């Protein structure tokens, strides 16, 4: 893997063209591993000698390009991109002896193994389907012989029948009318009542979490319900002109203040 460290980012014109052709066909891939396998073919080497660093670059370039073209990429493509970016940095930086976990080379070797194994299974599948097949290349007896002297009835059932029968019984009782479990639900009406009584004291910016009713913050189910109701009630009060609301950035605390 060491030789990769000195590799320049030399993506040839033909490779770039190939990568663009790939993007148009993004729906044709069965996930990131499939795409990586296709990309690795542009290196025209034995899969065991594939340069994972180069592959990571190609993949990241692909994802960038797809983003620029505003193509929808499924989440797992982005997860793979993040992982490859991490892998790329590991491969490029000298190993940090204090760092825990597998080295970049180990990770790269595993990825190469996965690609080789997937390719091997595809080849195996192709060879399997190329075999002579029953009913196409060779044939079973056309007529089973019927001798009518002895008649006996047997009963047949397949494993599928059996399993489906069982599933049928066991799922029959799953259906009951939908009933809300009221005990752990804090309604918006309750929250509104509570907030109306409290906002008189909220002259300064105060976090919304402090408005949660007591006794609702231990059980996660109850906390979720109370948070949602309090938030909805706050919005309602903002709409009515009684409250102001702010949040500095995503996931930052939400703050409330009485409107003068």
């Amino acid at each position, binding site marked *: 893997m060491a030789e990769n460290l000195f590799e320049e980012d030399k993506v040839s014109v033909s490779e770039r063209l190939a990568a663009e052709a790939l993007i148009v066909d993004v729906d044709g891939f069965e996930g990131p591993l499939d795409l990586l396998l296709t990309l690795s073919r542009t290196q025209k080497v034995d899969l065991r000698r594939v340069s994972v660093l180069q592959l990571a670059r190609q993949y990241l370039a692909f994802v960038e390009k797809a983003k620029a073209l505003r193509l929808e990429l499924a989440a797992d493509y982005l997860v793979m991109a993040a992982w490859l970016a991490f892998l790329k940095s590991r491969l490029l930086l000298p190993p940090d002896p204090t760092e825990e976990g597998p080295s970049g080379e180990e990770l790269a070797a595993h990825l190469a193994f996965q690609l080789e194994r997937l390719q091997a299974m595809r080849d195996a599948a192709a060879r399997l389907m190329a075999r002579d097949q029953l009913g196409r290349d060779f044939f079973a007896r*056309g007529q*089973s012989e019927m001798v009518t002297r002895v008649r006996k009835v047997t009963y047949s059932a397949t494993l599928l029948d059996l399993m489906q029968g069982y599933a049928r019984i066991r*799922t029959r009782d799953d259906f009951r009318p939908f009933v809300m479990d009221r005990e752990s639900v804090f309604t918006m009406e309750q929250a509104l009542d509570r907030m109306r009584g409290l906002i008189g004291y909220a002259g300064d910016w105060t976090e919304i979490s402090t408005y949660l009713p007591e006794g609702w913050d231990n059980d996660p189910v109850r906390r979720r319900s109370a948070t949602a109701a309090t938030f909805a009630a706050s919005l309602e009060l903002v709409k009515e002109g009684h409250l102001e609301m702010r949040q500095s950035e995503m996931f930052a605390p939400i703050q409330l203040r009485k409107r003068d």
Partner: protein
Amino acid sequence: MSELYEEKEESLFEAPPMGEQERMVEAILFATTEPITVRELEARLPHGCDPAEALVHLRKRYEGRGVTVTRVGDAWAIRTASDLGFLMQKETVETRKLSRAAIETLAIIAYHQPVTRAEIEEIRGVSVSRGTVDQLLELEWVRFGRRKMTPGRPVTFVVTQDFLDHFGLESARDLPGLKELRAAGLLENRPPPGGDVPRDEDEDESADGQSELFED
């Protein structure tokens, strides 16, 4: 084979040697669902073949064998030698699909064994008819297990080795659970309400029950 027929080769021209023709007729007779006439054979064989002669050779080859090349009207077929008809009894068997009640009962026994009749009825939600259990016993797919140590000491039912053989299972413990059935697409996709189907206890129970039977 072909050296037997060499003297004919000049007239056959492109046709395969007679040994090959015999093989071809043999394969066709074997695979067709209906007896086949010489004319039909001629139409299916490569150009220039002589199925009538191939049939003469083939017929001779099967003389005294377990099956014979037999004339049926003006057509030909491979048939069991008449003295071996007694071996064919199994071929005359009529197969019928097991009834839904029987399949469900069988499934419950397989998944919950050892299980009493009352337990089967509780799971199915209807009473189990005598005929259903008798049928399964007769098929030798279930048998009586040991009695339960509960009041009345009811008999239990368990599945048999025949059952495992018939359904291609190595043991009843390998039967897939509901989650696995769903994952394999064998269950209509209905969302289990309230998260999970309460199957865990069952699973433990049946694992217990079955391990008793199969561990030893």
